[in-house]
């Protein structure tokens, strides 16, 4: 039986991207610093993967100021949510097939 690897989303190949997306699935908005703390990662790493997801149009960025400090929040788009669900379905199918094999 053919394993549907092509169904897996290339954009989620990186683990951190998948993690970012799962946080944005259950929260309307999440800010940069909270994400950094939650995922235990560095500024640069997180920023580059957020950029990647933004380029795919899976998330949108909201820039605002809290007093003088910049407060950047992220929100998942409909396209991103759909892609995430499809990716999870594909992962699930992979498991199922490996069990039957």
């Amino acid at each position, binding site marked *: 039986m053919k394993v549907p*690897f092509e169904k897996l989303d290339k954009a989620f190949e990186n*683990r951190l991207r998948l993690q970012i997306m799962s946080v944005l699935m259950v929260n309307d908005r999440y800010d940069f610093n909270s994400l950094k703390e*939650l995922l235990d990662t560095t500024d640069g790493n997180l920023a580059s993967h957020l950029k990647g997801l933004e380029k795919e149009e899976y998330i949108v960025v909201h820039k605002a100021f809290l007093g003088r400090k910049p407060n950047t929040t992220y929100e998942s788009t409909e396209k991103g949510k759909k892609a995430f669900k499809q990716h*999870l379905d594909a992962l699930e199918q*992979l498991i199922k097939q*490996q069990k039957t094999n």
Partner: protein
Amino acid sequence: MEEKEIQNELASIRNLMERSSKFISLSGLSGILAGVYALIGAALAYNILYIRTPEISHVPIDNSAPVTGLFYGGSYRMLEWQLIAIAFVVLLASVITGIVLSYRKAKRKGQPIWGKTSRSLAFYMATPLVTGGLLILVFIYRGHYSIVAPASLIFYGLSLVGASNFTFTDVKYLGLCDIILGLVTACLPGYGLLFWAIGFGVLHIIYGSMMYLKYDR
């Protein structure tokens, strides 16, 4: 990709979804202790109301007619202050216990105690609680004592239902129980202290034990 790897991936996703949106460090043990404090407080209040000052025990404390302090002389005002002091100490002790024990659990679970989820939890809990607390104080000031037991149960229940989005869903059912109990109390004047002890004491101990067994260990 190996099956093990995929399963790890899925587990980490589930974990993140929960950790990012819910404050899972709420301590069940603190619920049990809060219930114990409430029962002690209720016992003290009962003692003051019906045993230490038997001369007023025939006066239903839950009389909806406004009672003037003048009628009972100075002792009535003092009684009132004693009861408010007991309620305040119970509240303070419960909140401090809750914060300290949740702090310890958060540390163990690696979740920030003052993160995005606990901030939302605190906000959605505080809004009905502060509203209810101020409303009750206003009514006490105006002499409507019968509102204290039902209103404190109802507003506390509402705050739990609101906060349950940001922590274990079990909290929602505790909130609903408290709201129902509050409404029943409102229909049965004279049993305020009893229902208050059930709502804040017994229910807390039951739910605290359930949460402790389910999540704390």
